[in-house]
């Protein structure tokens, strides 16, 4: 144990990314980040350290993004949506929110995606992805600002850096510390049933902190501990910080902070109920025990008690893991915490009314409405295909193909799927070839065209499409095996060797490239 401690201590020394580690953990078992904040979060010292931009860091990120070195797993997955009036409007909201940031600003760019999920997201390069699903459901510009402010805050607070660094750290450590940490958590965790639902809480946060704090800071971080508890603690802390800073930015930009409640309620509705595992297990056990008592079956009652003790322990551990695995607090808990923060720190501003005119004006403007309807029709076509209703899907896609967005990747890709379902393969291909702006396409759309060219033996066309994908998605890794295949088809030995060398740099792709090279040989 001592040896591990020394080793871990050496590895962890000078590790700035673990600063605040124990506070992050406390966020899981103690009082929330929001309730601990004094004053406006944007003015806190932990935020002020991010006011100054590091030009080297910004430069490095730019190089990754523009230089095709984005890892395949981090490349954008969705197709983008091009509705200029909407794009300008959303970017305008980001600009207005940015004015509330006291420091230097990184590049922040809004991109609309063809997803019908609700929540936006941000990547490390300052891209803020806004799904159509969000725009279909929000009620006001203030609500949009609440969510964009949250995403901007992830970028402003460098949350992606910590996530990436943590990922690296995770790989270095062993499972020794997990036994200590998990045992402490398990021993000090109680179940609160007073509100009618199961809630886990720490019975001794200070004592837990002392044990866990030391373990975490100076010993090895175990994968199982980090996956079940640690990374979740970080994740939750970061989400709370983004909620706080996003709210501050909203208020400084003159938006109504009550709109954050609207978006969190919608998010809660979207995500659905997530019942704890333990509730179901305990209910079943309780019913079985009551049943056996009523029948005076002591044997059965004793057996049920046995099951409760033995299986209950396993279920508790599993339920604990599941609880901790959720990277966000429940949306309604976040909402409650934010409202209390607003009442404490912004008693006047929380009264401001939401502007219900500005967003409908944009949403209902003809160019935007027609474009969004086109995407909705394509979405309905996909939903119909999922239910095997091909004629219905055909009707919807015909409407989408009559809209201003007919030649965008999502629409043509859906049309491709419908034609395939109809057995009209030649027409299916024509749909893909009708895509005008490939910079909007996501990896799966590129994949269809690249595979088609490779199957046909058209290496030149495949390479041209792969080059487009690399440029627009910023990732050389994504289609490197396909690049090798295409180079082989062109019988360009020099290019094959060059691609093979590059492929060797990508552990997830290396083995496949080598297999392909051997087959050809």
């Amino acid at each position: 144990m001592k040896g591990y401690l020394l080793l871990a201590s050496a590895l962890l020394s000078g590790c700035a990314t673990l600063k605040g580690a124990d506070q992050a953990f406390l966020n899981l078992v103690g009082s929330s980040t929001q309730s601990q904040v004094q004053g406006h979060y944007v003015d806190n010292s932990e935020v002020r350290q991010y006011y100054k931009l590091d030009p080297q860091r910004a430069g490095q990120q730019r190089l990754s993004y523009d230089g095709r070195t984005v890892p395949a797993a981090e490349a954008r997955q969705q197709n983008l949506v091009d509705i200029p009036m909407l794009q300008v409007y959303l970017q305008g909201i980001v600009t207005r929110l940015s004015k509330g940031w006291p420091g230097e600003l990184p590049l922040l760019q809004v991109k609309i995606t063809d997803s019908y999920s609700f929540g936006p997201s941000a990547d490390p390069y300052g891209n803020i992805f806004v799904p159509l699903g969000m725009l279909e459901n929000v009620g006001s510009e203030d609500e949009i600002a609440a969510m964009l402010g949250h995403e901007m805050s992830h970028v402003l607070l460098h949350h992606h850096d910590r996530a990436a660094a943590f990922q690296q750290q995770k790989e270095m450590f062993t499972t020794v510390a997990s036994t200590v940490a998990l045992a402490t958590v398990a021993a000090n965790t109680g179940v609160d049933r007073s509100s009618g639902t199961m809630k886990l809480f720490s019975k001794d946060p200070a004592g837990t902190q002392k044990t866990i704090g030391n373990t975490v800071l100076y010993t090895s971080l175990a994968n199982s501990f980090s996956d079940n508890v640690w990374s979740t603690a970080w994740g939750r802390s970061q989400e709370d910080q983004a909620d706080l800073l996003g709210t501050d930015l909203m208020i400084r930009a003159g938006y109504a902070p009550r709109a954050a409640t609207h978006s969190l309620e919608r998010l809660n509705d979207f995500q659905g109920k997530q019942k704890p595992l333990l509730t179901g297990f305990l209910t079943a056990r309780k019913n079985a025990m009551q049943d056996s008592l009523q029948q005076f079956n002591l044997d059965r009652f004793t057996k049920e008690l046995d099951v409760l003790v033995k299986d209950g322990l396993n279920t508790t551990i599993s339920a604990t893991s599941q609880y901790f695995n959720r990277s966000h607090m429940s949306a309604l808990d976040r909402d409650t915490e934010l409202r209390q923060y607003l009442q404490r720190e912004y008693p006047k501003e929380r009264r401001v009314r939401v502007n219900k005119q500005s967003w409908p004006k944009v949403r209902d403007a003809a160019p935007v409405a027609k474009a969004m309807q086109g995407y909705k029709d394509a979405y309905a076509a996909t939903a119909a295909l999922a239910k095997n209703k091909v004629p219905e899907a055909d009707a919807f896609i015909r409407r989408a193909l009559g809209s201003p967005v007919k030649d965008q990747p999502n629409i043509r890709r859906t049309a491709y799927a419908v034609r395939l379902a109809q057995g009209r393969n030649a027409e299916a291909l024509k749909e893909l070839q009708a895509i005008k702006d490939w910079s909007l396409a996501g990896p799966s759309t590129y994949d269809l065209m690249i595979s088609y060219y490779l199957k046909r033996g058209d290496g030149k066309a495949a390479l041209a499409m792969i080059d487009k994908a690399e440029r627009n998605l910023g990732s050389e890794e994504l289609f490197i095996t396909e690049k090798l295949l295409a180079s082989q088809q062109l019988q360009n030995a020099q290019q094959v060797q060059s691609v093979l060398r590059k492929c060797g740099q990508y552990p997830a792709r290396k083995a496949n490239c080598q297999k392909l090279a051997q087959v050809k040989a």
Partner: protein
Amino acid sequence: MNRILIVLLAALYSQGVLAETHVIKEFLADPVEVVDEQGKLQREIARKDTPKQPVQVLQLNTDLELVLVELAGQKVWLDTRDLRIEPPLNVMSLPCQQMPQSLASDTHNKSTLGYGAGCSQ
């Protein structure tokens, strides 16, 4: 004539009908503000003095986000920002559980940090 009457009656009572299906599940603010029908502050009630059981919403003003309820025998307007209302006033047209399977799973890339935990479908 009958049709017009039906439409008028529906318009008159729709807010009331809507309000009948809502309750205040929890008082979140401390203190809770009592306002007039325009949302102007009149007085405050300490959270400990608010009812513990759900309170029926008598009327809902969606424009000003106010609800009319009866507290201690008096009809008062409250601001929804101080309250947890059930069912919630802001919902989705399509919760993720009803999305086509192929679209429900998060197709977000692994480098992004999102607004919520994702679909639990």
